[in-house]
């Protein structure tokens, strides 16, 4: 199973930074994922520091296999003390999940997560661990076995308390209100992505607030177990020409969506598989060659220029008015969960001609950069193979 995870956040009104912190890390070799949502005391920079420290330390300690009880003591002792309140404080929810559906959740102070299975809310059992040094701090530990389609929703209290003081919702949205919104949305669209669902909840929470001004930082993180959406990108001709056919067939027989990035690569696949390439030259947008069409292939683009621009968009966001080949490639990547790159290692001498008006990077380096951004920023599972 694939773990689709995403988090949406909204800053408290008038603050310039988030007081909640979401962090997550995948361990592809273990098929595991750790995610933390932490809420720092207060708001703004101070809260951000407390929350970021908590989330970072939790991930590091859990990664190292330390006991959670000891970890939390260390974190509480390490956090800076708030000048106003004379305490160091942050709350958190942490989930450690693997692809078989085994999930361990630890909560401390955050609203209880919502576990949704088959369109219904499940209230699982938990054990309580008390802190030795901090009297009023208790951790709730859950061990769950999730199946395909199940969801876990974590929120900061900014969601459950949104609308507090609103004449219609005297106690705010509360957990019951959150559950109602979640079930409605899932019922409407059972396959809704974690990204969409979390965005939706944050939007609802903000709209519930008086004057639509968030009184607290609002964060919502969704974990969804589902079939992975696979994508395969073939870029660059293989180092040994005699293997062209072998790799072309492998590409054809692979599951999931497919893209080709590179003119020579498209020609190679076309020749080996006998599929014509239809090149449209009327549609070159944004100083990039237009996309071409090949039957059975979802996207065909030029190589280096398009890849370089895609990395730029992945890093800084797409801000142009018109869609182009690179933005199409970005959408292709972001709508997939497991992304595999088949990177041909053959170099084209002409690309390194010093007379070329722009600098062209080595394909391997661009893909390396792209893979890292997809893994770190977009939490995708990425495999890169050099061929």
């Amino acid at each position, binding site marked *: 199973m694939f773990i689709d995870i995403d988090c949406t956040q909204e800053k408290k009104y008038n603050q310039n930074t988030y007081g909640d912190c979401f962090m997550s890390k995948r361990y592809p070799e273990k098929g595991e994922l750790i995610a933390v949502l932490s809420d720092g005391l207060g708001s703004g920079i101070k809260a951000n520091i407390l929350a970021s420290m908590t989330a970072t330390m939790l991930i590091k300690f859990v990664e190292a296999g330390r006991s959670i009880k000891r970890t939390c003591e260390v974190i509480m002792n390490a956090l800076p003390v708030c000048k106003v309140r004379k305490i160091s404080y942050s709350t958190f929810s942490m989930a450690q999940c693997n692809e078989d559906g085994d999930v361990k959740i630890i909560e401390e102070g955050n609203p209880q997560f919502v576990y949704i299975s088959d369109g219904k809310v499940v209230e699982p059992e938990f054990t309580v661990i008390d802190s030795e040094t901090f009297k009023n701090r208790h951790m709730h530990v859950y061990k769950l076995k999730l199946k395909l389609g199940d969801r876990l929703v974590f929120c900061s209290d900014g969601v459950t308390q949104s609308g507090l003081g609103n004449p219609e919702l005297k106690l705010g949205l509360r957990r019951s209100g959150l559950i109602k919104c979640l079930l409605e949305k899932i019922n409407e669209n059972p396959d809704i992505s974690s990204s969409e669902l979390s965005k939706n909840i944050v939007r609802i929470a903000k709209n519930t607030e008086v004057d639509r001004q968030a009184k607290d930082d609002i964060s919502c993180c969704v974990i969804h177990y589902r079939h992975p959406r696979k994508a395969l990108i073939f870029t660059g001709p293989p180092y040994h020409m005699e293997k062209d056919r072998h790799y072309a067939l492998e590409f054809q027989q692979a599951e999931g969506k497919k893209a080709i990035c590179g003119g020579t690569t498209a020609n190679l696949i076309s020749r080996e598989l006998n599929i014509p390439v239809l090149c*449209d030259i009327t549609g070159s947008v944004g100083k990039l060659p237009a996309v071409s069409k090949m039957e059975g292939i979802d996207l065909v683009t030029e190589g280096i220029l398009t890849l370089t621009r895609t990395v730029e968009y992945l890093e800084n966001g797409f801000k142009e008015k018109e869609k182009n080949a690179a933005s199409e490639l970005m959408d292709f990547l972001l709508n997939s969960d497991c992304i595999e790159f088949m990177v041909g290692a053959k170099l084209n001498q002409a690309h390194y001609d010093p007379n070329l008006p722009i600098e062209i990077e080595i394909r391997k380096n661009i893909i390396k950069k792209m893979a890292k951004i997809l893994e770190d920023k977009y939490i995708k599972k990425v495999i890169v193979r050099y061929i």
Partner: protein
Amino acid sequence: MSKIQVKICMGTTCFVMGAAHLQELVEILPEKYPDKVEVSGVTCLELCSDASKYTNAPYVKVNDDVIADATIEKVLKHIERLLENGQE
């Protein structure tokens, strides 16, 4: 009467060396020589990969002739010559 085939390379090297401007041929040629010329883009003519022979991108192919350092004027001139020589 077979049409003259004009193929514009849209590969990386040709594109950065000016093939982006050659795209205008798509509008110019059918207007100037209706029914005589067919223009299309190709993902890559794969000429530049032979660096010992082809170092003058962008390339355009008119029938089987390779035009190096291609410009709109050069392509038009070549087509004119073919038509004069009774290519049709």
